[in-house]
């Protein structure tokens, strides 16, 4: 769909898919690659709130707006609003007459909606499997393959969903292998810099496969969406500890703390 707006004082016109997010439009269609998605409290998709709550409110609001558009078009075409069909930017009556949505009177074409899912929560539905090799001489764990599969109910934006799942999986792998908040007995933090507190980046865990399905919509919201992305991070710690235990099963190793740093895994493989 064609979109026109003013950015940095310059009018622009661009054609994008209707589902393209504004940030993607700026970055990829207009090459404004300094565009980033800010993340602040209450805006992040944690607790599955962005799409479950915000998306459902937008969905409800769109329904209200659609009814108003039908009524406005029906008044314009002098027919029943129930017979109005909206396709391709036009509202049509059963007899074939139609009016462009852009030509409808703007007054009143606004909708307010809210959505709350009190006590009707959504959950992440998924599972993950991993293949690791453990070097008993160094304690190094290599992630040979990692597969995460989630049924998110309904996929709204495949690109951002995929990034969310991969990102949350890498975050989980950071917790499983690298990130360690070390304190002394007085509560003094030792891992106080990013040189000591290791955070995974894109090159640390290159072998991750993520598959998102939409077989079972959630019954608790009109979009049918569920937690998405959390399924990436939730299983990682237990999964990695079990994978290392499996690799070292001949030694009876039982990892029971994270991160599985090289010294930690080396001790499991070389019990004194």
């Amino acid at each position: 769909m064609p979109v026109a707006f003013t950015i940095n004082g310059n009018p622009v016109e661009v054609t994008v898919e209707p589902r393209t997010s504004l940030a993607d439009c700026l970055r990829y269609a207009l090459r404004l690659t300094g565009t980033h998605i800010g993340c602040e409290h209450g805006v992040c998709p944690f607790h599955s709130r962005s799409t479950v709550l915000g998306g459902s409110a937008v969905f409800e609001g769109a329904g209200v707006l659609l009814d108003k558009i039908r009524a406005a078009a029906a008044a314009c075409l002098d027919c029943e609003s129930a017979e109005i069909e909206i396709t391709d930017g036009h509202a049509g009556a059963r007899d074939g007459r139609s009016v462009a949505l852009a030509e409808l009177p703007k007054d009143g074409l606004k909708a307010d909606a809210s959505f709350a899912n009190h006590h009707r929560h959504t959950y992440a539905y998924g599972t993950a499997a991993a293949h690791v090799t453990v070097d008993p001489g160094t304690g190094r764990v290599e992630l040979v393959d990692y597969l995460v599969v989630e049924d998110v109910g309904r996929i709204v934006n495949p690109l951002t969903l995929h990034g969310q799942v991969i990102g949350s999986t890498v975050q989980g792998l950071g917790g499983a292998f690298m990130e360690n908040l070390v304190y002394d007995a007085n509560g003094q933090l030792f891992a106080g810099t990013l040189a000591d507190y290791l955070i995974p980046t894109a090159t640390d865990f290159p072998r991750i496969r993520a598959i998102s399905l939409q077989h079972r919509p959630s019954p608790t919201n009109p979009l049918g969406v569920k937690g998405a992305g959390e399924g990436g991070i939730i299983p990682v710690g237990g999964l990695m500890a079990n994978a290392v235990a499996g690799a070292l099963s001949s030694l009876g190793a039982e990892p029971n703390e994270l991160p599985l740093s090289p010294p930690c895994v080396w001790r499991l493989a070389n019990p004194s």
Partner: protein
Amino acid sequence: MPVISHVGVIGAFSRPHRLEPVEAMLDGRNVDEQTIAAAARAAADAVDPPQDLHADAEYRRALVATLVERALRAAAQRRSA
């Protein structure tokens, strides 16, 4: 065939270090499995590893043995290839 060896380690002292006693064990000898094992043990004994958040001294000492052993074996294989 006799060799002239250089063995260097980092993270095993407060600064990068050559392990000259280990080099002396290897120089002029055939690098067989027995020599490699003895050199790895000697390397672990020779180092004075620091310890920090990321690794304790015991782990670093064992790691020196593992890595010296693997490096010598790889070098010997390259030489005989």
